[in-house]
């Protein structure tokens, strides 16, 4: 059993990756109406869901999701739930892999062909996601620990930058009084949706104290949320962030690192983000493979390699059919479904726990 800090790493990784790659465009698209209020509400909503989940996962220490659901749900229902989980996490991983390859292609090596880059990343991530859960978590710890100082430095640089106009920030926060919308809440909830990984890694993670977990998640989440919402606005103003797809990379390209031998913060940020994003894809695909295993479809040599090669070919084929706009559209679809599905899963767990209690 691993300590509960690995659970925090999962939450943190999910947040850091999602905020930077896709959601900014989506969240800033409604900056004049509902996005700020919706993001805050989604933080509160996810905190409630986390507490609900953690409280009801307590009776099942060290059990896998299939063991938890046995006795409450029929096998067919279990398998269809697992299938949905699998598709969602696989889709999230694929979309992020494609988008991150685009970013690397644009900023680091425009001379190498896109297909080659994608192929290398795909090959690497698929095989790493075959590692066993504990090694994945250890790898995650290293990457997150290296990434945290970069984020702290970024926030400090932002706070100390004399070029930031406070009026921009005040203007942005003056749009707080608007009704939230479902689309924006779903986008916000996606940032915090790392808690669903508990279902996969429950076998290897200690159960947590819900109240302590909640305070940490809420304070850190609020801090990061505000930082990520306001830092680009401080650099570009509310009107200036509308039409940029990679707003975070433009932002870090505008941050000057004083007293350091590299002047552009972008360089450091890109390299850190490379590790974090690939780790996120690995976790996503690892999750989908774990769900396959739970559904008893991943045992034995032949079946395993069938799925792996299926994953590789499928990703490559989907990539061929996905351009920039389909990637973005599919992401907003995925977000909308994922929030609903997460709520359904949490309540399924609640039901399982109730039933277990009644039996005991």
């Amino acid at each position, binding site marked *: 059993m691993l300590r509960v800090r690995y659970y925090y790493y999962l939450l943190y990784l999910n947040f850091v990756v999602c905020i930077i790659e896709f959601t900014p465009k989506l969240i800033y698209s409604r900056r004049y109406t509902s996005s700020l209020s919706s993001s805050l509400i989604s933080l509160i909503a996810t905190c409630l869901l986390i507490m609900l989940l953690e409280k009801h996962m307590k009776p099942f220490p060290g059990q896998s999701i299939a063991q938890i659901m046995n006795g409450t749900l029929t096998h067919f229902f279990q398998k269809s739930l697992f299938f949905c989980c699998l598709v969602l996490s696989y889709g999230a991983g694929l979309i992020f892999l494609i988008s991150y390859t685009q970013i690397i292609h644009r900023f680091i090596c425009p001379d190498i062909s896109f297909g080659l880059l994608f192929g290398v990343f795909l090959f690497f991530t698929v095989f790493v996601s075959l590692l066993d859960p504990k090694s994945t978590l250890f790898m995650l710890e290293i990457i997150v620990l290296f990434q945290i100082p970069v984020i702290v430095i970024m926030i400090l640089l932002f706070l100390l930058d004399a070029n930031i106009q406070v009026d921009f920030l005040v203007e942005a926060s003056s749009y707080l*009084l608007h009704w939230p919308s479902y689309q924006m809440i779903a986008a916000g909830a996606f940032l915090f949706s790392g808690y669903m990984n508990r279902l996969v890694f429950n076998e290897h993670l200690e159960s947590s104290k819900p109240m302590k977990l909640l305070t940490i998640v809420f304070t850190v989440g609020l801090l990061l949320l505000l930082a990520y919402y306001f830092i680009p606005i401080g*650099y570009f103003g509310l009107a200036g962030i509308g039409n940029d797809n990679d707003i975070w990379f433009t932002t870090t390209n505008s941050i000057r690192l004083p007293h350091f031998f590299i002047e552009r913060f972008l360089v450091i940020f890109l390299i850190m983000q490379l590790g974090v994003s690939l780790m996120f894809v690995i976790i996503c695909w690892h999750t989908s493979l774990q769900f396959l295993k739970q559904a008893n479809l991943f045992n034995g040599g032949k079946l395993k390699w069938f799925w792996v090669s299926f994953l590789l070919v499928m990703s490559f084929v989907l990539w061929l059919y996905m351009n920039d706009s389909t990637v973005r559209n599919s992401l907003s679809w995925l977000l909308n479904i994922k929030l609903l599905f997460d709520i359904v899963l949490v309540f399924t767990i609640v039901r399982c726990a109730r039933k277990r209690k009644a039996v005991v």
Partner: protein
Amino acid sequence: MTSIGVDASEVKNKKYAVVIKISMSKGDVKVIGSDFILLKVNCNSISDGLDQLRAMSDKKLEYGHVKILLFGEGVAKKDIAMAIDYFMRRPDIQKIAYLGIGKPNAYQLLKFKPKEEAVAGSYFFYTFQQSLKHSPYVYAVTLYDASRRIMTPGLDLTIPVMAFQGKDLQINQIALFDKKQLEVELSSEESKILKMLTSGLYNDTLSLKTSNGVYSVTTEKGKANYKITLSQGKPIVIFSIKLKGGLIERLDDAEVITEDIKNSLAKIAEQQIQKKVYELLIKLREENLDPIGFGLRYRSRHFDHSNDTESWSAFYPELDFKIQVKYKFKEN
């Protein structure tokens, strides 16, 4: 490549003349690598120009080191927003590159070769980087700053102007833009005041005349704050400026400095600065330019944004200013 210049083309049917400065530095720290090549091409778009320049050099042009973007006066007077937008969206150009207006054009300025510089073009870079405390006249404007000033209603673009003074370079004027083109070039005296109002002032000299003689006073530090309040339905901007005086130089048989003289000097300085600030603010209002960001400030203090841009553009021509200056001498 260390700098890019964009001029209006002298050739008919061409829009721009793009100039690039390629450093011939060898990468050895001990050797000063200030040799450079200037390449110039006439073209219809900047991207077309940069492509043509690629064919004029045996080297791979690397845009990641561009630290200075210079615009000729001709381009600035026509349309600078498009060019800034292009550079902003190009991923390989640093958004912390500094902008400048070249007088008479960018080519002449890029040709300038100082006696000594670390890398070709670093002369401009260091001047701008230190301009906040180094120069009494201008503050540096980076690419991302320019872009946000173009996009945001109620905050207008300013860019420092570089010009030759004999054989040397001088950067002591600020050019004011509306959202698209150069409107006014402030005199160096006005630039000083604008700098004081926006980024603060460090070490500047005033010469003051009292009944006891003429003194030259160094202001060590100055900072301005303002707020916008409504009085009788009309907005009024209240500036409070705090200045700290340091060393006083006596001129023309002036009397020895005493506390009384210091007090009267402070009073005269306050009056003088108040007058200058008021004149500048009225000038900006008359030109309908807003480099300080009154419009943005007004907008940011409201919760109801349904028609604030319109109401502000109606307010601004009638805006009134109240200026409170506090001048204090350092104890010594």
